[in-house]
């Protein structure tokens, strides 16, 4: 047993070193900007850059719309499947897993060819339309995560009884979903939302190929042209990702427990 513990500690220490050293190195590199001394100059430059602010805000807004679209598509579907159509669950699950099989670059390539300005649905004909297509693309990317989060949430509540109770009280479908189901799975939806946020905020491929002024293409541009700012941006992005994951962990603590969750 003693020997097993040694190997466990060794494995853990090696893993920790591999994961922590790049973070330290990035931080150290970001602070090298002023010659001969450590400083936060690179961070000051980044935060002061109007393009940083503009692209970051653009991506935040895109992420919010992505989350709204994702919730709008996933919650009613997952609910309906649980309530009325359990027989087509495998089909839905298969479709929600497709974005993990089809690379994002292939999906956006298809969009560019299908929704060009000469097509019947000219999303790419206008800036707003392209924004919409970007949000749609992001919602597709986030679909596997959003669906799984919501479905796990629905598993913990008694969908059928809640629905029947609401129907007896005279609620229609819209009211049942918005006032009964959604509040009950809100925590699951929120953890899906924060995961979506973490995925979308620095996304490069789709934003770049659709020519949108998002944070991802900005990162790429800075990376190609500057020395110390990229490291500062990497630290900032890591902190954002870390923040999103912490919120998800906190939310999980409030989530109702079910037989499917250990502990």
């Amino acid at each position: 047993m003693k020997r097993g513990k040694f190997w466990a500690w060794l494995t853990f220490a090696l893993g920790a070193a591999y994961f922590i050293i790049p973070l330290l190195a990035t931080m150290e590199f970001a602070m090298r900007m002023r010659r001969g001394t450590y400083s936060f100059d690179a961070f000051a430059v980044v935060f002061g850059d109007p393009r940083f602010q503009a692209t970051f805000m653009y991506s935040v807004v895109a992420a919010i719309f992505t989350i709204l679209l994702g919730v709008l598509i996933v919650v009613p579907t997952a609910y309906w499947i649980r309530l009325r159509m359990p027989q087509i669950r495998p089909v839905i699950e298969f479709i929600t897993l497709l974005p993990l099989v089809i690379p994002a670059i292939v999906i956006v390539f298809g969009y560019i060819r299908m929704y060009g300005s000469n097509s019947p649905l000219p999303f790419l004909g206008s800036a707003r339309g392209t924004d919409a297509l970007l949000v749609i693309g992001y919602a597709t990317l986030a679909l596997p995560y959003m669906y799984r989060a919501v479905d796990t949430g629905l598993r913990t509540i008694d969908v059928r009884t809640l629905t029947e109770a609401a129907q007896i009280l005279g609620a229609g479908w819209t009211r049942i979903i918005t006032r009964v189901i959604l509040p009950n799975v809100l925590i699951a939806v929120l953890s899906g939302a924060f995961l979506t946020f973490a995925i979308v905020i620095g996304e490069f491929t789709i934003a770049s190929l659709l020519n949108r002024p998002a944070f991802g293409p900005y990162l790429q541009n800075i990376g190609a042209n500057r020395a110390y700012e990229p490291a500062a941006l990497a630290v900032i992005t890591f902190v954002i990702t870390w923040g999103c994951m912490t919120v998800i962990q906190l939310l999980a603590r409030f989530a109702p427990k079910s037989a499917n969750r250990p502990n």
Partner: protein
Amino acid sequence: MTTDITRIEPGAVVRPGNPPARRRTARMPTHWLGVAPFFLFAIMFLILPTGYLVVGAFQNPQGGLTLANIAALWEPTIRAAYWISIKVSFASAVLGALAGLAIAIAIVRGGLPGWVRGATLTFSGVASNFAGIPLAFAFLATLGRLGLVTILLKDVFGFNLYATGFNILSFWGLTLTYLYFQIPLMVVIITPAFDGLKKEWGEAAATLGATQWQYWRMVVIPVLWPSFLGTVILLFANAFGAIATAYALTGSSLNIVPILLYAQIRGDVLHNPHLGYAIAFGMIFITGMANVFYIWFRTRSERWLK
């Protein structure tokens, strides 16, 4: 004997039969209406765009059916791009899976204090989502020519990393970088699978006189094998489609498939749009085949488990 239907009270005959009839005619469509938005979204923005490319891969510019585009994938540059992509994805998936498995075993079975497990899982959640361009920046700051580790190795240990032929812009550099999100993903997925191993199985095996090794070989490995293999394939697809990290790390100097496709979409560098479709089709084909293998393995191991 004929019945004059006008003389029958409307309710008498119609009412009892009415609800089932209405259910049969009106309810089936509303049933499907509930999932219609989802299917509409999936068809318009997932299936049709992909299908468009797949069909395009088998067409010539005039719209006729051809296999020339697929055959053109065997051109040396394109074949080399596929080969590097497959090698990097495979190496990072297998190494990431093994390392992730080792870490999962250490935190679940190693008898480490509880906080280690919690901290590892939280960090893995973060790191598995820390990909794309910032990850490339982090590794350039670590193992680039001016990176902290490169400099420390040179100044403290007198070891010149770049003199050994190592380059962050190479196959091993990219694999090492990809491991940063591959290992945590494995940890996040496989740890719950370990939790699914029931304590009773271990006790039952011990009661029957099994050694620790027998327990692992005959219980743990067969039970975990499908999830392990499934995750390896997920990691493979994850790395195969990734472009942002490689693009930010190497520019276009490392010729992997997603970067080739990116250049093709931007500027038709291959001078043949349908060849672009063929490259996209090839990518779907490879990740798709990986999944077929996964399903095949899984049904085999499940049958064996019974």
